[in-house]
């Protein structure tokens, strides 16, 4: 059974992280980084050509992680695949023992690095979840044909954007995702408790039963925060946090210490995780470290999160 599913069923605080496959065919850096996550998380999301930029496939790195004994979460978007290809990926994944997935619609090709590619979008996030649920229920593929040995079972997840106006649209979409089979959701990066609390209230009010994992993006610098505020939908880094990063940069310059803003970013992430866990605001966290996976053990230690406790 999926490690993340086991954690939630045992009432534990779920912890996932995220990695991107290389833009190339040498996976050694990813495999080295993955070692920081061994025994520290319930699953590692492997992104599926995030931002529509060409990389090695999610399935490829998932297989490598699985073979190395690290639990992968197969991210699946509908941007580049028809429903036929999606089923093919899932059957292959299952044959390697991969049993946790996250379904996404996918960023449009026009925001990516090969804008001429045809966006497929045969299925959206709800469609992918429903395809899996229907397959599990019937033992048949999307054409109604029997699958040899029955259908594989996946612990299915989705994403959600808590900072969104009008919020009711995200809540409605979330309800649909759950109706289609999502058991857990990872949120877009959040930086403060209040917006997360507001979102959780809305989830409760709508009577949506799903495990919510708060998305955590440790900030590396004020510039990164400003860029994300301006360009990334659903991201809202508060001004006082940007100031902390700016002050840390100034202090580092004055004292000749490198990497102070990154350290502050790690502290802020750990503080937030600690509060989320202590105040039981949601069921877990999803760490998006954007290539800085080596910081994850530190962040979790500072936050007092130990999945083996």
């Amino acid at each position: 059974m999926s490690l993340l599913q086991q954690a939630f069923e045992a009432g534990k605080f779920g912890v996932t992280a995220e990695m991107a496959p290389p833009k190339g065919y040498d996976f050694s850096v990813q495999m080295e980084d993955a070692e920081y996550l061994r025994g520290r998380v319930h699953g590692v999301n492997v992104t599926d050509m995030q931002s529509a930029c060409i990389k090695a496939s999610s399935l490829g790195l998932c297989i490598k992680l699985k073979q190395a004994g690290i639990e992968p979460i197969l991210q699946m978007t509908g941007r580049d695949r028809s429903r036929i290809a999606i089923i093919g990926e899932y059957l292959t994944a299952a044959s390697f023992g991969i049993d946790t997935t996250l379904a996404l619609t996918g960023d449009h090709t026009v925001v990516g690095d090969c804008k001429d590619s045809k966006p497929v979008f045969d299925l959206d996030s709800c469609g992918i979840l429903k395809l899996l649920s229907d397959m599990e229920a019937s033992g048949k593929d999307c054409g109604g044909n029997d699958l040899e040995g029955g259908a594989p079972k996946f612990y299915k997840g989705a994403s959600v954007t808590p900072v969104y106006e009008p919020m009711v649209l995200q809540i409605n979409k979330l309800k649909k995702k759950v109706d289609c089979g999502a058991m857990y959701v990872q949120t877009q990066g959040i930086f403060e408790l209040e917006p997360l609390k507001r979102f959780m209230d809305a989830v409760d009010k709508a009577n949506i039963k799903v495990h919510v994992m708060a998305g955590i993006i440790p900030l590396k610098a004020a510039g990164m925060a400003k860029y994300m505020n301006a360009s990334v939908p659903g991201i809202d880094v508060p001004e006082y946090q940007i100031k902390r990063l700016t002050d840390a940069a100034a202090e580092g310059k004055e004292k000749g210490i490198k990497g102070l803003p990154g350290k502050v970013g790690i502290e802020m992430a750990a503080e937030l995780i600690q509060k989320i866990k202590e105040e039981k605001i949601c069921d877990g966290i999803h760490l998006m470290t954007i290539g800085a996976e080596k910081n994850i053990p530190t962040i979790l230690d500072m936050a007092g999160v130990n999945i083996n406790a």
Partner: protein
Amino acid sequence: MIITQKKPIEELMAMLEGTTRVGLIGCGNCATACQTGGEKDLAEMKEYLEAHGKQVVGTAIPDECCQKLLVKKEVKVFKDSGAEAIVCMACGDGAQTVAANLKLPVYPSNNTMFLGQVERVGVFNEACRMCGDCVVGSTGGICPITQCAKSLVNGPCGGQKDGKCEVNPDNDCAWIKIYNRLVELGQEDKILEVRPDKGYGAFSYPRKISLKEEK
């Protein structure tokens, strides 16, 4: 209306290389409205071609260039004209209708862009992608297949910023528009309906509809 745009003239001239005697055919309907194949456009094309060594031996503007029988009648003007090729200034459908009625090469002067609404003279918006399974009854009269860059049928992605689409920030998020419209109509419950993703089984083209055969 079928929205057309003029091809770069160099592209047309390349198609006409080696051809001297040319017939021009436009369209009295869509291409006239798009200013790509009406009377004025044919006159301008004639002038251009003649200034560039071509001889325009005949012109025709059928009321609709996609009507096979109508076009068959109209192209008679080219029959004994000595035309070596026809420049069709209608849509892609029109060009093919002309080609089906003449044993001459037909060269399109336009690109066929989309099925569009006329906002005002010369301004066209794409609103329907002719998907064959109209959903606007449950989406407040706004088509998500066309207005959402990802053609999402179950609500928005997380990609809007300040109500604008991540794919083209000039466009409003279709699902926010749909939601606002449904609220206005007192139909916001409709946004909760889970819609199965569109099936493409009946989409192998070319398609044909015959009312006679359906009876």
